[in-house]
């Protein structure tokens, strides 16, 4: 049909389509939430590396508990915080598989702190995509370990006060001290340029795993307009203006790794 409009012999290039690694269903995320973009970037990377058939994803507890419905690869749903341990079990059984764990900030940096630190220090050949939106989304906006100082949440109604609630955890900086963690990068979802950078980092993290180099993690600063009480545009601005000063973007380890 299109040939009729554009003239015989003229070939149309597809410049945008749903990645094969994503199931063709609509996602349940709130308007303005950037989880969907992170999912898409992972799926594009899986497509580009041609690894869908040997990739196993680990779903966390949190807003993305059911992202096994969105990825076309095999998926294992894990208990809260335990995704790196589950990923370890999967990977050790079939070392030729590519295994990624998708975790939020409560999952990874509160209840699952031991699991992420030890998976990293063992140098497990897995990739962790760590979505940091500074809040508990699914349970309706409680303080996360990454909640900023003075940030109001449902469990810090007067703002996060270091005297009472302690300080935000900088996961990339923390994990950077570990020998087994070889690729660590923090990226952001607040604009197109940064989204493209995020994709590069995610791709490299997967390639590091495929080259058997060790543990890789990409922290993705992400928005939660619903629980931040903002519209989507304000939320992206809040990442840029409030989160990035506390969670500086960039590579923390493995920038020059050959993959």
């Amino acid at each position, binding site marked *: 049909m299109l040939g009729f409009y554009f003239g015989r012999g003229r070939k149309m290039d597809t410049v945008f389509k749903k990645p094969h690694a994503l199931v063709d269903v609509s996602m349940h995320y709130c308007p303005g939430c950037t989880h969907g973009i992170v999912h898409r970037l992972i799926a594009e990377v899986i497509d580009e590396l041609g690894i*869908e*058939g*040997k*990739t*196993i994803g*680990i*779903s966390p507890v949190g807003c993305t*508990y*059911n992202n*096994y*419905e969105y*990825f*076309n*690869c*095999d*998926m*294992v*749903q*894990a*208990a809260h915080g*335990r995704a790196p*341990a*589950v*990923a*370890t*079990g*999967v*990977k*050790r*059984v*079939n070392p030729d*598989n590519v295994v990624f764990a998708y975790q939020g900030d409560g999952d990874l940096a509160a209840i699952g702190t*031991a*699991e992420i*630190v*030890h998976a990293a220090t*063992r140098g497990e050949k897995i990739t962790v995509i760590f979505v940091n939106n500074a809040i508990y989304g699914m349970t309706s906006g409680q303080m996360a370990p990454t909640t900023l100082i003075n940030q109001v949440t449902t469990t810090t109604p007067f703002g996060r006060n270091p005297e009472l609630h302690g300080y935000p955890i900088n996961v990339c900086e923390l994990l950077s001290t570990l020998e087994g963690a070889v690729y660590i990068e923090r990226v952001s979802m607040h604009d197109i340029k940064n989204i493209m950078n995020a994709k590069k980092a995610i791709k490299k993290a997967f390639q590091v795993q495929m080259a058997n180099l060790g543990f890789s993690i990409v922290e993705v600063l992400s928005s939660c307009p619903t629980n931040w009480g903002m519209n989507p545009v304000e939320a992206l601005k809040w990442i840029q203006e409030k989160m990035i000063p506390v969670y500086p973007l960039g590579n923390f380890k493995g920038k020059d790794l050959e993959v």
Partner: protein
Amino acid sequence: MGEKLLMKGNEAIAEAALRAGCRHYFGYPITPQTEIAHYLAKKMPEVGGTFIQAESEVAAINMVYGAASAGARVLTSSSSPGISLKQEGLSYLAGAELPAVVVNIVRCGPGLGGILPAQCDYFQAVKGGGHGDYKMVVLAPSSVQELYELTVEAFNIADRYRIVSMIMGDGILGQMMEAVEFKDVENIEKVDKPWATTGTQMKREHNTVTSIYIQPEVLEKHNQKLQAKYRLIEEKETRVETYNCEDADIIVTAFGTVARIVKNVIKMAQKEGIKVGLIRPITLWPFPVKEFEKYADVPKAFLSVELNAGQMVEDVKMAVNGKRPVYFHGRMGGMIPTQKEILDKIKEILNG
């Protein structure tokens, strides 16, 4: 005749796992079961398997969850406080219907308690220590030979029903040395696992291993399926040893280590003209209810002897169902009843 070796109980479990085709072990040290880890730390590399000393029991059971998802035969072992930490994972394994073998070499509690033998985790094992309606097959060996045989069997049962099998022993069984005769060829059931997350290879729909079902209708159906499976296991997998029950004056019931003591009590009682029978549940779940029903009218009374404050005795009472009085004798804190102590209790009941 197979190879015969003198082994510690814990080592026999580890060797049995290898012979059953288990190539993945995840655990965390705790007395009195750590020889299982020592043995497998040496042997797993020889057979191309995985041994990981995890950062915690919580991590270990979740590594088990991952390895089982990937279709492997997988083992973890611990002792009471560590098994408490694994309860979250056990519930998830049950919900996701993953096969795995878990060893509990029980020590006395509560809390950190002590490291001496006990059977105080009976309730936790058979009634469901974690959340939700679920069951594990709980096997209670009473010799090192049985630790070997039942560990192999535990892997077969786990795969056959997609369920967790638990081996429940105590420090006496784990630490003592006895001769074990190994089979030349193990009975390893090959079970297809089309549900396993091994990668689609772009040849099938993607598999999901999960225990979450948000829709109540779906979750109820899932639970009904689990319950139907448990009823089938009750029918097919109940194991029990009975001894001298046919004309017993009193039937004693005991499992594991205590059953060995009771067998000696039976000989002592015979010399005094007292007929004592024994029902030894080998599976604590499924509980051998039918065996109790069969002999319920025979003796004057039943006596449950346990290393706890009275746990299995509740299941005995339900199985006997009021037909005869059911008595209890137990020791706690790592204390073991003597043969004379049990015989005195028997006399007290029969003369009372």
